[in-house]
């Protein structure tokens, strides 16, 4: 009797195929574990309206990576950055992040996305368990909300709530000193504009309870003309104006408000003014606009910060942005953590990062800390000051008090049900 085989793949072939498959899947990981270089993936925005910020993020990362590599790399492994354009689209950011890990063999992620994209990359990090450092999203809930918490993700970015507390406190002190009771607001009509303005006015009213918001304007994001907004504010006759317009929208607004002589008629608080992207573009920058610090090489006023700003400008022929210092700080943290762990294993690095304090040119006291309980950056230089039309643009910055920030942040977290 002859044994006949049924058509199809035999058990032996199936086993052989499974074995080969397992080897081919595992091979990159084996190879990776032995590779001399460590690949770090970075999705960021390199095209579209905010490409300048993504480019400045990439520049800052490369500036620091070159230093780390020159000093011997991460635990003896040279860093190879794999940086991809997400076009500012969340779904593309998630796709790119996944591809960087699964196809390109990146072991860690530096997430250079704006808020919407960051939440998408965060989910990829949750899914793949890869070490991820967010470097651009200021949305407080990304790390404040315990539902978002994962052990392998950290945020190395200033936070909206921190800015609002410091901004509200600073504005209230000016308000009391100058008797500014009638306020107007003008911010872009999307989540960032609404949330930031809401938090700012919340703390402004907390520190100066007699303040009244008499006019609100919500122009579209990237609106070309603000004339009707400017004239509406002039009609309301406020004593002070708050705005979180940014980038080209802010410079357009300033140019258009300037010819109505608006800046002579009220105190203006524009949280995003003190960033070189805006400061160097506005040709007729009015004196005396109050602004939060984004990135200014004169604040903190230390030789280390000035040297870092100059080194960046020397290499890229332009000044860094707010996103630049945050990305540079992320590389500094990763480098220090790898040194302490003497390893590039993501889990070990994550353990070391928790509560890690490092020396940093952007620290309020020369250091910054990755807070252990919510994996977020604290202790960075944060403050407000007034502009002048030439360098250093914001000669004196009043630094925020981190003790007050911590107290009010904890209170805010309680009110949100986060703790």
């Amino acid at each position, binding site marked *: 009797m002859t044994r006949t085989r049924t058509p199809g793949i035999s058990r032996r072939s199936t086993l052989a195929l499974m074995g080969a498959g397992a080897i081919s899947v595992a091979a990159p990981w084996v190879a990776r574990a032995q590779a001399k270089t460590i690949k770090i993936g970075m999705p960021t925005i390199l095209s579209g309206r905010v490409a300048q910020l993504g480019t400045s993020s990439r520049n800052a990362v490369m500036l620091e990576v070159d230093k780390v590599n020159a000093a011997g790399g991460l635990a003896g492994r040279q860093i190879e950055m794999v940086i991809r354009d997400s076009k500012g689209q969340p779904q593309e950011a998630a796709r790119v992040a996944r591809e960087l890990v699964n196809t390109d063999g990146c072991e860690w992620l530096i997430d250079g996305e704006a808020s919407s994209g960051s939440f998408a990359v965060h989910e990829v990090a949750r899914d793949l368990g890869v070490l991820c450092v967010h470097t651009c999203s200021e949305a407080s809930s990304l790390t404040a909300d315990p539902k978002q918490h994962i052990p392998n993700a950290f945020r190395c970015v200033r936070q909206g709530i921190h800015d609002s507390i410091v901004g509200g406190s600073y504005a209230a002190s000016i308000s009391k000193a100058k008797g500014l009771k009638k306020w107007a607001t003008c911010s872009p009509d999307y989540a960032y504009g609404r949330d930031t303005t809401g938090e700012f006015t919340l703390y402004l009213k907390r520190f100066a309870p007699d303040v009244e918001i008499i006019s609100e304007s919500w122009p579209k994001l990237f609106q070309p003309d603000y004339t*009707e907004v400017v004239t509406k504010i002039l009609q309301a006759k406020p004593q002070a104006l708050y705005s979180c317009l940014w980038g080209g929208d802010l410079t357009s607004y300033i*140019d258009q408000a300037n*010819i109505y002589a608006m800046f002579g008629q009220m105190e203006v608080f524009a949280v995003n003014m003190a960033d070189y992207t805006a400061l160097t573009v506005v040709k007729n920058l009015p004196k005396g606009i109050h602004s939060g610090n984004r990135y200014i090489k004169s604040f903190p006023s230390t030789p280390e910060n000035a040297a870092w700003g100059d080194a960046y400008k020397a290499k890229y022929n332009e000044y860094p942005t707010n996103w630049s210092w945050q990305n540079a700080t992320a590389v500094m943290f990763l480098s220090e953590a790898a040194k302490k762990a003497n390893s590039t294993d993501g889990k070990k690095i994550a353990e070391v990062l928790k509560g890690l304090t490092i020396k940093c040119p952007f620290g309020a006291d020369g250091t910054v800390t990755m807070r252990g309980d919510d994996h977020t950056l604290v202790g960075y230089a944060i403050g407000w000051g007034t502009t002048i039309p030439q360098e250093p643009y914001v000669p004196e910055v009043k630094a925020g008090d981190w003790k007050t920030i911590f107290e009010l942040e904890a209170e805010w977290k309680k009110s949100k049900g986060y703790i």
Partner: protein
Amino acid sequence: MTVSACFVWFSAPYQARRNESAPVDLDALAGCLSSSACLVTQTTSGLIIGMLLFLVAVGLTLIFGVLKIVNFSHGAFYMFGAYFAMTAYQFTGSFALAMIAGAAGTAVLGLIFERVFMSRVYGADVLMQLLVCYAFVLIFDDVVRLIWGPEFKSMGMPAAFQVMPLFIAGGVVPPYYLLLIGVALVAAIVLGIGLSRSRIGKVIRATAHNPGMVSALGINTGLIYGGVFALGGMLAGLAGALAAPVRSLTPGMGFSVLIESFIVTVIGGMGSIVGALVGALLLGLIRSFGSLGFPLFTEGLMYLFMVIVLVSKPTGLFGKEAA
């Protein structure tokens, strides 16, 4: 009962949800209409928005009227006008030369664009024409990105206009905006008279009506088409140049202006210059006064107005019925 009280039912859910200003504030609008200062400020504000829109929209409507092409890439000429003006201003420091560079540069660009590319798709399907135009929207944006960089730029206000605004009947009117309105008005008058009275104007109108007959009479219609496209581009470029001192310059800046220009041409009637002027001014005034009375619905008002016009007169306010 105040007028705003009538809208409490409308605004309450929004206020409860987001604690923000009411979507309808008719008290503010009524207050403005009864104050000469506010009336002057908001009217001039509307005129400024309207006149810039007119310059872009009239080129669009002119090209459609003569060439029967919906030039989807028209916003790019507005963008190039602004960039040409900024560059000329940086090199020469002369505001007048900057305006001339913006207008002349885009006229040349329009002529080349029409002769080299658009003239090849005149007989083609509308979809093909739209695709070619859209392709050039992307190409022109990338060209700007390559030449001037992806970051936003600012031309800055010339020193001559860095002066205190004028106060007319208590209203605030910046001198630069008076110039802007004046230039746009002169362009409208010259265009109107030129098309209706001059010989070349008659030829253009004849070409729009019957290009075959005009061609049979020995007139080079290709030249007329190129000239009209160049004129349309020049007007959009002039708008961009005039806007450059007060608006930030970015690749893709023409798109938002293009959308509003389409609304203007639809309201005014495709192919009608008077319609473009009236439509643009109406839109400007809707934005200006709408921001006071309907702060959360200003954009919606423009579209609502367009819908009302389309329903009551589908060809637009000054559009002609198809023969």
